[in-house]
């Protein structure tokens, strides 16, 4: 959201859009809805078009971006409301209210204070996070833009003007650079090309000053805001004095999207047509929904179990109470008469209050502070990600960024990884590797670059082509492209070398690579001036060519051509394109020698292009020229006509050579993908790229192995026209049969057993996908989606190409909603990935070159794709283990906290007498036992981080929420129950003789509770100490500190007659307890017995591990040597020559 046309890349001001809009936007529809009907009319300037048409100020979305949840005023009520919507908080609120209203055994403070503490801490955390959002919003909203008012530029804050350049801008006029073309780097890249050329309407290109713009009277009619980035339909009506209004049509090429960055111009004039939350980009954000992690779902399930335990406990106690009380001397012995009020209450009401009282007494079994501890853990724990030095990138001088702390543990549960390709898997920068001319290979090494610019001995020969052919080839490279020159001082050195005075800009990084490649060999493209292309050749001479026609690239033809006229008048057609599209159009005898090179290059993972040329006679050219112009003018079937002309033109050419360009993979992306695979994740690549490019990348990064059998559902296989639905149906059925029906069912086996059997890869493109997801008519095709999904889930790897951003999100949503709702992760770097980042459970942004949209909307942002490995395998795993342990521990410690209290009811006549003092009840969860588990859940590394990163298999151990399944939950519950029983009955037997002091004095009920509580606090804390594998000084500090604090507090609490307390029940109880040797012995014994199973388990585990190690020692040696193989394999093992090389 941040990138402004003014602010981001173009130094100097971009003249902002024009102001008010007259829009037929109905207020209610200002954001969110996808389907919009009707059009809106935008008046350029708020000048009425004519006298009769009075200007009516329109209600219209303002340009403020609001992502924050609260304001200063509504924070308290709204936040409280939000917090009490949580079941646990609401439950405690109810308990608190019950305590206030009903006569309950414990004072309201015991549950009110922890609740207050929890609410406060959460509110502070949420307030802080919202403050960060406010800051980010302000950064956007307060940024300066220029608007034209009364023929002057006025600088204003973005949010204060109704319509600003921050909205989407339709180009009115450009500061002219290069024939009225404007290359725009869409903020974050609309798709892979990253840079797109946008045009102004011809009638307005002359308006280059503020005055001229101000004089313009026009209206723009356009459709209501809708999220499709690639579609824009509208028209501009320009009124000129004394002339008929002129109407011009507007298309997507006239629309600048929000966040776009200007590349080759300093400023543009524009009109804002959509603003604020109505911009296409904003509509594509889909609104940030609250992401809830799977752990939280487990917590809720456990909560329900404990709630059931609680309810049954209360019911049991209430029932037994009345059974017990049926005996009158139990109900009301002479020494303990009821109050008048008590006698007068109805029995049913009394039973009900008794039930509530028991609920209150046992309510601590629901761990009140768990949520706040979980939140603290997430909040503080997320710092470890941003502090991770290994995820720090030297290039951008930044480390990882954590936008939400709610999903840390989700990183350890990922099953599906959806990744963008360009900029994520690859560097998004191409490099010229080699070329072959007439079958002779020319490969330069960096050191030889200088040699090339010398006239005589340019090349390292593997055989030499004729000089003239070399030059022709290089000229072809220099001429056959749509690259533009940008003076270096106008842009930062995004692509160009810093020593150059200029930079090349193109919508295709391949072309830049080629032009630069040619430059290395001595032919430098100097730019285009008035349709003349200038080249400096090897002899440092200028050559100029008149550019006559550009036969633009399109994905069907997969080639492009230029027609130029040399200074001598020769007409030349240069064509470059994929080998599959070039070879049929050249002389067959020329192919063979080049083909060898092309195939080998493709095998090496390079993107190959073939270059061909032909000479045109004037006559031929005239014909072509005429045909082209005719086709361009055509209003109907323009595309087809053009295609036909192109087809005719690009025939009978002569092959000169081929080039090989490398789209460099990001470092270690292949290793990362392999690691993700090994960790049991399925990786899907979703890209806006063409299939061929994407496919070769997938091979390069080992998403597809050589053994992977590819299934294709693309425009190519499905075909065109009406029959495609049938064809699709056939294909789907065929694949379905192949994958699901024919595969012997081994359901009982490993869930991720696909790693063992034949691997399948699926390739699907956007149009086919929309065919599947939105079947056009009949219901018979509606189960396509299901079949498709089944196929997808069976495939090791899936490649989706030509995806629109929303389609990416659709795919993610589809997988997300399948059975078992697997955890999905999306990673991308551009604005087009935002929707899928938001859709997935975990969204990861790459802090790439394409702006910050992705990382701003992501949950986590990392500098490079390779960091995903550590993020998931190490951090995710650890966070998951930590939080799972935290959750289980919380339930456990509260169970053994409350169980003695429950058991005590059997010995106190079910009178709801609390076993522990109110202070202990209150402090147990918030003071005595909270910090050790917090420290544990922040710092624990049960397995060393390096081991985790190195061994992806370990990730599988925690997959499927393994540590929060019912089995471990039962283990913990039994442990808690066992310990609770030990605590209570241990002290119970001790108290058979309550004179435990050496002077014969007797202990009372509060001492009983205090002994139980002391054993409890020590046991649960020491249990945590036993679980801790990674001791830091902090662990030591909080564990021993908590125990010391408990002792200190108990002394303190019992050492003073507190004036505010009704009863001084704890007065010197703790101190007296400690004077008794028996008590000491009992406490030590009970702690030991409680921990005994745990200690035994540890010992047994150690023994088992040791014997394992002995056994594995010999076996291990082999895999060890295997894993020591060089980590970088040759990039690519196999590709298809005809698929790897299109622009």
């Amino acid at each position, binding site marked *: 959201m941040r990138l402004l046309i003014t602010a981001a890349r173009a130094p100097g001001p971009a003249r902002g859009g024009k102001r008010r809009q007259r829009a037929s936007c109905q207020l209610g529809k200002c954001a969110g809805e996808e389907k919009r009907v009707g059009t809106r009319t935008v008046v350029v300037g708020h000048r009425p078009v004519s006298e009769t048409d009075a200007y009516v100020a329109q209600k219209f979305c303002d340009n403020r971006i609001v992502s924050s949840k609260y304001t200063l005023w509504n924070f308290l009520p709204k936040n409280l409301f939000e917090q009490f919507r949580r079941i646990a908080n609401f439950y405690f609120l109810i308990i608190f209210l019950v305590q206030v209203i009903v006569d309950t055994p414990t004072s309201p403070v015991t549950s009110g204070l922890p609740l207050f503490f929890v609410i406060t801490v959460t509110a502070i955390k949420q307030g802080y996070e919202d403050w960060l959002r406010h800051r980010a919003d302000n950064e956007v909203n307060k940024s300066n833009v220029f608007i034209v008012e009364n023929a002057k530029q006025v600088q204003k804050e973005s949010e204060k003007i109704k319509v600003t350049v921050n909205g989407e801008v339709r180009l009115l006029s450009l500061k002219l650079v290069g024939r009225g073309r404007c290359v725009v780097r869409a903020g974050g890249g609309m798709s892979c090309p990253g840079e797109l050329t946008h045009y102004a309407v011809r009638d307005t290109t002359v308006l280059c000053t503020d005055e001229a713009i101000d004089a313009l009277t026009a209206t723009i009619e356009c459709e209501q805001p809708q999220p499709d980035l690639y579609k824009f339909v509208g028209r501009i009506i320009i009124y000129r004095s004394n002339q008929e209004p002129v109407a011009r049509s507007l298309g997507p090429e006239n629309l600048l999207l929000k966040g776009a960055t200007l590349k080759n111009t300093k400023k543009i004039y524009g009109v804002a047509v959509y603003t604020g939350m109505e911009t296409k980009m904003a509509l594509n954000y889909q609104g940030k929904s609250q992401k809830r992690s799977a752990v939280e779902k487990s917590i809720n399930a456990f909560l329900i179990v404990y709630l059931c335990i609680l309810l049954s406990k209360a019911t049991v106690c209430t029932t037994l109470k009345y059974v*017990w009380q049926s005996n009158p*001397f*139990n109900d009301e*012995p*002479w*020494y*303990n*008469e*009821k*109050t*008048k009020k*008590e006698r007068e209450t109805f029995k049913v009401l009394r039973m009900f209050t008794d039930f509530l009282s028991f609920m209150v007494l046992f309510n601590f079994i629901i761990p009140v502070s768990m949520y706040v501890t979980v939140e603290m853990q997430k909040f503080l724990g997320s710092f470890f990600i941003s502090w991770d030095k290994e995820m720090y990138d030297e290039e951008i001088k930044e480390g990882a960024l954590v936008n939400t702390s709610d999903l840390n543990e989700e990183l350890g549960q990922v099953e599906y990884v959806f990744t963008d390709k360009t900029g994520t898997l690859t560097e998004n920068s191409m490099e010229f590797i080699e070329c072959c001319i007439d079958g002779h290979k020319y490969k330069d090494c960096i050191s030889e670059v200088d040699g090339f610019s010398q006239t005589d001995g340019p090349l390292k020969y593997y055989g030499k082509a004729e000089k003239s052919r070399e030059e022709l080839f290089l000229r072809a490279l220099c001429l056959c492209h749509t690259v533009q020159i940008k003076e270096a001082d106008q842009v930062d050195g995004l692509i160009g070398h810093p020593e150059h005075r200029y930079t090349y800009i193109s919508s295709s990084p391949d072309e830049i690579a080629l032009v630069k490649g040619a430059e290395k060999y001595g032919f430098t493209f100097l730019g285009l001036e008035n349709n003349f292309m200038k080249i400096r050749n090897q002899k440092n001479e200028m050559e100029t060519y008149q550019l006559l026609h550009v036969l633009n690239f399109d994905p069907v033809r997969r080639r492009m051509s230029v027609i130029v006229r040399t200074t001598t008048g020769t007409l030349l057609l240069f064509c470059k394109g994929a080998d599959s599209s070039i070879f049929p159009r050249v002389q067959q005898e020329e192919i063979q020698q080049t083909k060898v090179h092309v195939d080998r290059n493709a095998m090496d993972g390079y993107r190959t292009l073939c270059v061909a040329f032909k000479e045109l006679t004037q006559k031929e050219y005239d014909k072509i020229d005429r045909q082209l112009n005719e086709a361009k003018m055509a209003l109907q079937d323009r595309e087809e006509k053009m295609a036909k002309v192109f087809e005719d033109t690009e025939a009978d050419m002569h092959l000169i050579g081929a080039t090989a360009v490398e789209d460099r993979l990001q470092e270690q992306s292949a290793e990362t993908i392999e690691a993700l695979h090994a960790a049991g994740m399925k990786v899907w690549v979703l890209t806006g790229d063409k299939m061929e490019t994407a496919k070769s990348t997938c091979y390069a990064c080992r998403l597809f192995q050589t053994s992977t059998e590819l299934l294709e559902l693309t425009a190519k296989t499905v075909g065109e026209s009406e029959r495609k639905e049938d064809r699709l149906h056939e294909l789907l059925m065929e694949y379905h049969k192949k994958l699901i029906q024919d595969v012997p069912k081994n359901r009982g086996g490993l869930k991720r057993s696909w790693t063992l059997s034949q691997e399948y890869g699926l390739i699907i493109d956007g149009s086919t996908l929309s065919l599947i997801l939105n079947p056009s008519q009949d219901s018979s095709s509606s189960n396509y989606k299901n079949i498709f999904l089944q196929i997808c889930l069976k495939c090791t790897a899936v490649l989706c190409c030509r995806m629109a951003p929303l389609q990416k999100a659709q795919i993610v949503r589809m997988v997300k909603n399948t059975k078992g709702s697997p955890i999905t992760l999306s990673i991308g770097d551009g604005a087009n990935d935002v929707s899928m980042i938001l859709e997935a459970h975990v969204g990861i942004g790459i802090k790439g070159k394409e702006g910050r949209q992705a990382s701003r909307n992501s949950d986590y942002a990392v500098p490079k794709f390779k960091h995903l490995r550590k993020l998931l395998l190490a951090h995710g795993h650890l966070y998951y283990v930590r939080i799972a342990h935290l959750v289980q521990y919380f339930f456990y410690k509260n169970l053994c906290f409350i169980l003695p209290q429950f058991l005590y009811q*059997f*010995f*106190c*006549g079910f*009178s*709801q*007498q*609390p076993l522990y003092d109110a202070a202990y009840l209150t402090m147990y969860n918030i003071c005595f036992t909270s910090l050790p588990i917090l420290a544990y859940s922040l710092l624990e590394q*049960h397995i*060393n981080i390096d081991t985790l990163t190195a061994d992806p298999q370990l990730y599988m151990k925690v997959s499927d929420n393994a540590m929060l399944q019912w089995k471990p939950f039962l283990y913990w519950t039994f442990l808690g129950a066992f310990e609770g029983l030990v605590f209570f009955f*241990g002290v*119970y*037997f*001790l*108290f*058979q*003789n*309550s*004179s*435990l002091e*050496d*002077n*014969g*004095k*007797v*202990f009372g*009920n509060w001492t*009983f509770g205090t002994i139980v509580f002391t054993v409890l606090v020590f046991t649960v804390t020491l249990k945590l100490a036993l679980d801790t594998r990674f001791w830091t000084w902090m662990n030591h500090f909080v564990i021993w500190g908590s125990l010391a604090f408990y002792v200190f507090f108990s002394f303190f609490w019992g050492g003073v*007659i507190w004036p505010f307390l*009704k*009863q*001084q*029940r704890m007065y*010197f109880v703790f*101190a*007296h307890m400690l004077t*008794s*040797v*028996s008590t000491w*012995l*009992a406490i030590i*014994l009970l702690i030991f017995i409680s921990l005994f199973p745990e200690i*035994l388990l540890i010992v047994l585990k150690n*023994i088992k591990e*040791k*014997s394992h190690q*002995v056994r594995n*020692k010999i076996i291990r040696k082999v895999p060890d040597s295997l894993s020591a193989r060089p980590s970088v394999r040759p990039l690519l093992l196999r590709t298809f020559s005809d698929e790897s090389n299109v622009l």
Partner: protein
Amino acid sequence: MGFWSWGVVTLQNECPGNTLAYSSISFFYSPTVNDCPFFPLQIDYTGTEPSSPCNKCLNVSWDSSPPCTCTINFTLEHSFESNVFMYYGLSNFYQNHRRYVKSRDDSQLNGDNASLLNPSKECEPYRTNEDKPIAPCGAIANSMFNDTLELYRIDNDTRTPITLIKKGIAWWTDKNVKFRNPTGDGNLTALFQGTTKPVNWPKPVYMLDSEPDNNGFINEDFIVWMRTAALPTFRKLYRLIERKNNLQPTLQAGKYSLDIAYNYPVHSFDGRKRMILSTISWMGGKNPFLGIAYITVGSICFFLGVVLLIIHHKYGNRNTSADIPN
């Protein structure tokens, strides 16, 4: 018996060598004559059995005067060598019932004059009597144990009273800090002016004892009673019997008689009363639980240790143990 105590075998009276049956019936057996030297002597004087001398007092009420008295003779097989502690024990008495536990006013007991005349609402229904505030208020105070136990040694038909010391039975902090008489001028009677005695008491609180430092709220019997017991079967320290000199044991083996002024009715709620004589070691009162538990746990540990040691020797490989973490 308590609602629950049938399920729990009381180990308290168990004597090594005796049958388990002995221990389980020991509560019902009366009078009990203890014949093991290191275990306390318990005498149940509830008087439920018709043969018991106290049977006549079974249905005694609070305000019977003169009090019903009874005498129980018993024989001490072994002498008590060191200081002897005399307890009274009650069974099925729910001193830990919530309504009971909270029925007290600690600030009144701490000598706060305002609370003295306006006791806390927690004391209901033992807060006021005939519009006068009760001091000490509440159910606990109201139900204070008021049997009088006296011990005589019978030596050739002569009854020698044994000196029972009534001070030093309460926690020092309770006696000196937590429980305070109201402050002001005049004697205790004047200080408690305007209050009335608890309903069940025969005399007001300022007449509990003749000694001023053991009278009123700081009466040690009262303080001991006010520390509510943890379980429905409990004992409370009643008197101390100090060893006179090094030549004689505190209580020689022989015949004794226990004189009881039977005031405290327990029959209505099926309770029982005991008198317990016990010596105390450095570990406190006799408590078989700890010994048994320690021996059991120790044996288990030893056994497991041996097993694991064998396993370790059989499978353990010392060379590999150190180098692989986790």
